């Protein structure tokens, strides 16, 4: 029941998204594809990307679940401001995030002296990559989980508490299982965002094979000298992204079918 003309701009919009993917696919050197995506440097970059993205997803869960709980289940003055600030990395250009991280965790940053005393150097390390990824991915998990918490409501929690369950038990046995699909899709989105992170990483962490050169940075380097390999690796990332979106869209559907 939509006006027929709507299809035209809708098709244009879809074309804008899909055509570049076709353009990318059209440039793939299929004959060498396997060799290009399994070269030593490619595998090093892929493995670094997977390891850092998994670590940052774990950090997002550890930090993001409590954040979402505080935002969805409590009320305090200035909550709106806090929520906006927490969600800021969603709309912030990643390169700005990278500069902000640099002036916070960098050697001459806000916490630089303290970290130096502890013997920790963040810049140019894999830790910096994980920090950058966590910074940009955290809001994805918080948004998605806060939404799940709000739509799930408090009824079951109230009932559980009235039956004598301690707050931690309610959280563990009622709240978390209830919002698990939302948590999973949030975590998958955070993982995808980490995997694609480029701007903050290159600004804050640098680019060195095996330490900080993740897949997007590797592709960025490669496009100059070996465009075929860059295209092949890009396609790998597209396939991963499609898989991730497939996984993430499972989440809400399951939630809707819940009682």
């Amino acid at each position, binding site marked *: 029941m939509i006006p027929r003309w709507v299809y035209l701009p809708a098709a244009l919009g879809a074309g804008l998204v899909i055509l570049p993917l076709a353009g990318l696919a059209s440039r793939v050197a299929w004959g060498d594809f396997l060799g290009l995506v399994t070269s030593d440097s490619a595998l090093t970059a892929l493995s670094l990307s997977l390891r850092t993205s998994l670590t940052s997803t774990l950090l997002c869960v550890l930090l993001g679940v409590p954040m979402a709980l505080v935002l969805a289940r409590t009320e305090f003055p200035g909550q709106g401001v806090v929520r906006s600030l927490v969600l800021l990395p969603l709309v912030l250009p990643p390169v700005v995030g990278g500069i902000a991280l640099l002036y916070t965790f960098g050697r001459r940053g806000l916490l630089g002296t303290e970290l130096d005393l502890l013997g920790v150097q963040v810049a140019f390390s894999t830790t910096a990559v994980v920090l950058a990824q966590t910074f940009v991915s955290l809001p994805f998990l918080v948004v998605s989980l806060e939404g799940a918490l709000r739509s799930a409501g408090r009824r079951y929690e109230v009932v559980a508490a009235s039956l004598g369950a301690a707050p931690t038990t309610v959280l563990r046995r009622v709240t978390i299982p209830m919002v698990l699909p939302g948590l999973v899709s949030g975590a998958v989105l955070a993982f995808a965002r980490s995997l694609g992170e480029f701007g903050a990483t290159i600004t804050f962490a640098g680019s060195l094979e095996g330490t900080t050169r993740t897949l997007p940075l590797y592709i960025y*380097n490669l496009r100059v000298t070996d465009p075929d390999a860059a295209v092949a690796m890009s396609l790998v990332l597209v396939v991963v992204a499609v898989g991730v979106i497939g996984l993430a869209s499972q989440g809400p559907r399951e939630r809707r079918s819940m009682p």
Partner: protein
Amino acid sequence: MRKLVLPLVVALALPLTACGGGADDTTTLTVYAASSLTSSFERLGKRFEAEHDGVDVRLSFGGSSDLVTQIQEGAPADVFASADTATMDRLTADGLAAGDPQAFATNTLEIAVPPGNPAGITGLRDLTKPGVDLVVCAPEVPCGAAAVAVAKDAGVDLSPVSEEQSVTDVLAKVSTGEADAGLVYVTDVLGAGDDVEGIELPEASSVVNTYPIVAVEGAAQPGLARDFVELVVGATGRAVLGDAGFGPP
């Protein structure tokens, strides 16, 4: 709904017509040049506009390799100036150069350190000391290739903490104090002003980067393109480039 859609379509289409109308009275010359040429070419562009009535010089700066790729993909460049001959060769190999490229400047590497030189760097050997965070360009880009060549000639084994994609990225890591030292061009240290200090690198004199320039085949403004190349390789170009620290070809 129509009330809302029509103004939107008009609003979207307006800038397109405005663009077409503006092109009538001025001619645009598009120059693609390596990032390290930014300030010099901005000055030369102004000079060219002053000498040619009704000509607007549009400058696009980037990594030389990126620019060649863009030209190969059909970007409307009239002139291309590269930071090294290897990258220029990619353009000529594709038959995209109108005539032979002409060398117009040279550049050598220098060590850039943060103001105050916190790590006390005095020369190439210091860069290999443990605890010294060195940042260089990736070997795939001209400044990185030069760094590899300098280290090889001097028999020094460099182990950088990061290999950046461009000179600007290296400079940023040094000027923020994140890295103790970086290998960049002499002109970059000069251009960065007080943000970094330069440490002379005698070992670099054997590795000289030559900058070639050429009019692009199929340029929209072939005559103006040739004029611009003449300006850059001529006395005016030499003076402006010399001010920025470039050596003669």
